[in-house]
């Protein structure tokens, strides 16, 4: 059935639909699978959990008022407070929290409104909306990074208690879980599971559930950024090797071979131990430094196949520059396998990071899942073994499921 004979189109008086692009075909294949869509939704929920973690758990009250005067929101102030959220990752996610809350609905509305328009105007307005949101994010993020705020440390639940003892009327509205992932209470060490502490407390009296929730931020950040880093580098190397061949290929191949042979976890742990104050940025770089070989090999193979095809010859004949041929002509066609590798790669990076922190060679200042599990192993407390284990399993499982969905969606053999 061609579009001209489609009665619904004629009735609505709309332009005939465009031929689907490659991306649309793949997306169409992807959403056909229940598991794939489910995993994508699950991951989106995890991301939302990571972004809105402070809304769920924070020991700063949303609203704070003493004796009916001076209403303030310590929670809002703490979002960009480097004394409360020491870590760059938290600042990053808090910026996301603010920006997503502010412009998320607008972007969503743009997407929803343009869902029926034809491709060109639709893509244009969608791209504009996304760009504006991204720009806002960058501005806020740069601002809060360049001008760090630092305020005095106040433990509000304690303050409330002492103020009430003085006979003052305190109005405080807390998050559902009034604990911080960082501040422990040494009077409440290793408490069992209760309604107050869903998963008990750890050796320093910190609420395990809160740490687990904030651990989502760490795991997702490490997974996504480490993979972005090594996919970029690996793709570049693979493209060079595959396109030029000869001694370039030979040299890059040797390097890849060398890196593959060294058992990666040994190398990762060794290098990690050398860094005095490991931050999760170091960990990302270390993971990226050993993992870039797999996208490099994939892209190389694709380039070897593609560089002899006619469209490349045509591009050469048209007098395109080499960089244009590599990055604009061949590379987009070579990215399919890389996308699959990237999705599985995020899962593996998360596993690697949690292994590192499990062995005590991660970033000890952040609430990482592996670290909680290590505490669980040391103390033998079941909750602290099972809960972080389940969190890792869930995240890794969802990512693997999505990776399989992407792989199947890209595989033309499985297409009907």
């Amino acid at each position, binding site marked *: 059935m061609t579009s001209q004979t489609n009665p619904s189109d004629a009735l609505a008086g709309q332009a005939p639909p465009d031929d689907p692009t490659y991306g649309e075909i793949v997306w169409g294949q992807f959403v056909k699978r229940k598991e794939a869509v489910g995993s994508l939704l699950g991951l989106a929920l995890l991301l939302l959990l990571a972004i809105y973690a402070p809304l769920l758990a924070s020991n700063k009250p949303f609203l704070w008022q003493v004796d009916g005067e001076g209403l303030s929101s310590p929670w809002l102030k703490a979002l960009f407070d480097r004394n409360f959220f020491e870590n760059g990752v938290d600042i990053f996610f808090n910026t996301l929290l603010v920006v997503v809350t502010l412009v998320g609905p607008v972007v969503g509305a743009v997407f929803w409104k343009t869902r029926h328009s034809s491709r060109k105007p639709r893509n244009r307005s969608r791209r504009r909306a996304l760009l504006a949101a991204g720009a806002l994010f960058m501005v806020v993020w740069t601002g809060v990074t360049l001008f760090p705020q630092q305020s005095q440390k106040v433990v509000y639940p304690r303050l409330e208690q002492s103020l009430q003892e003085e006979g003052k009327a305190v109005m405080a509205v807390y998050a559902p879980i009034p604990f911080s992932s960082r501040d422990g209470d040494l009077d409440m060490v290793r408490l069992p599971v209760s309604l107050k502490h869903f998963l008990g407390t750890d050796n320093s009296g910190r609420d395990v559930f809160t740490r687990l929730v904030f651990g989502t931020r760490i795991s997702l950040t490490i997974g996504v950024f480490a993979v972005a880093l090594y996919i970029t580098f690996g793709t570049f190397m693979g493209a060079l090797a595959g396109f030029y061949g000869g001694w370039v290929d030979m040299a890059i191949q*040797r*390097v890849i*071979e*060398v*890196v*593959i*042979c*060294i*058992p*990666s*976890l*040994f*190398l990762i*742990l*060794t*290098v990690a*131990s*050398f*860094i*005095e104050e490991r931050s999760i940025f170091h960990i990302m770089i270390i993971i990226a430094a050993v993992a870039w070989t797999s996208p490099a090999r994939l892209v190389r193979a694709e380039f070897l196949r593609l560089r002899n095809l006619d469209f490349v010859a045509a591009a050469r004949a048209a007098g395109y520059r080499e960089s244009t041929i590599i990055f604009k002509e061949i590379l987009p066609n070579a990215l399919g396998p890389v996308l699959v590798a990237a999705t599985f790669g995020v*899962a593996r990076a998360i*596993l690697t990071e*949690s*292994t590192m922190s*499990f*062995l005590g*060679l991660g970033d000890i200042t952040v609430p990482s899942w*592996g670290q909680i*599990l290590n505490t*669980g*192993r040391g103390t*033998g407390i*079941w909750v602290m*073994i*099972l809960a*972080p*284990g389940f969190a*890792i*399993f869930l995240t*890794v*499982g969802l990512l*693997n*499921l999505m990776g399989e969905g992407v792989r199947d969606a890209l595989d033309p053999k499985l297409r009907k």
Partner: protein
Amino acid sequence: MLQYTIKRLLLVIPTFFLISLLIFVVLNVAPGRPGAGSQNDGGESSNQQQKESFRIFKEQFNLDKPILVNTRWALETADVRELLVTAHKLEGDVTAAERVDAEVDLDDFGNYLVKHLVVLLDDSNPEVQRLAAATLVSAAQLRFVSERRADPLEARRVNREISKANESVKTWTWPEGAPAEQQAAVSASWKDWYTTNEGNYTWTGSERVDAFFFDTRFAKYWSNLIHLDFGISTADRRPVFETVMGKLKYSLSLTMVATLLAYFIAVPIGVFSAYRQGTRLDTAVTVMLFVMYSLPTFFTGTVLLRLLTEGEPFAWFPTGDFQTMSSAPWTTWDRLKDIVWHLVLPMATYTSVSLATLSRYARAGVIEVIRADYIRTARAKGLSEPVVIIKHAVRNGMIPILTLLGGLLPALIAGSVVIEVVFNIPGMGQYIFNAIGARDYNAVMAVLLTSSFLALIGILVSDLSYAFVDPRISFD
């Protein structure tokens, strides 16, 4: 095929060399030196003895040498003077870090300084003269030869002579504010000594090239490596190679048995699952394998350990270790039983991950093959179903999982860290984990090198077997 084999075999050598180069550079540019803890923390005069012992320690482990290339013969007298001045804060402002760096350089440059220090004995600044003489004492010391190789008796004799020569040089300094005659006398004896020994401290063209490449940490390390000498552990002062070989038997037996086990279980599961593709049983198996695949090893290990060993809720297995400590007098059979008993949990953990990966690939491999024309032909010929499946489908479907072995090996070896740390098995993984903590560079290096070598060989074997099994693959 033969040509390909030979090519691959020859490539092992440069690859291993590059691996060692990479590991070596990574280890050596890393901050935090072994033994640095024993260095004095600032007290200058009182810790002369300690400083000297640290210098000898560095010499023994070649830590005073440059890492990859040596350009120290190109030093100028002015550079050396600068170092002396900085190290002792004689002129201008010097930060603590600069001072420490200069001190370390003065320690490390050793023989390469002698030529310049002799010139500096006549420096215009009397303090520089004094320091030049003081530095000469350590710089002019001859190195002891290693007693661990070749002819120990001969080495010991040579070392005695070196020691005697060093002893005479040691006294040639003067304290601050010493009379001029004493200074002149010491200066003169240094100059005399230098004229007789000049050859040792100046470098001709070819000697420079030699020093450039070979008077380096890497070259020294490799020259030892060729004799399978991986150096001495800074932690227990025993040869690292022997320790690693001792640890290897635990890790290797664990890895190999786990891999074999994984293959033996995974292939039937995968084949069965593929044969019954789409049934409820297949779905159940697939889901189970997916769960196993996504579970982190350290989690599985910890749960098993917590669940099934001493204490609650079950006490079916021992809490770890390779065998019972006091098992030495037992009979071989009892000891074997004991070891197996200890290894059930680590093995289960170890196998679970590779098992999941392998079965998934086995299933995919058989599914791919089972639709092929020759399977239909085989059925049409009237062959019995088991023959079709086992002889025709499985054999060809298993080719992909054979190559997987190559990729799996480095991961399995590395995975031993987690298993061995969790279950307290004294293998390579635990050894490197402890060595990393203790900054025992020789040990870390040795484990990295041996494990990389094993992985290299493993990958080679699996590539070759791939080419051997699948006649469709040809290598030019």
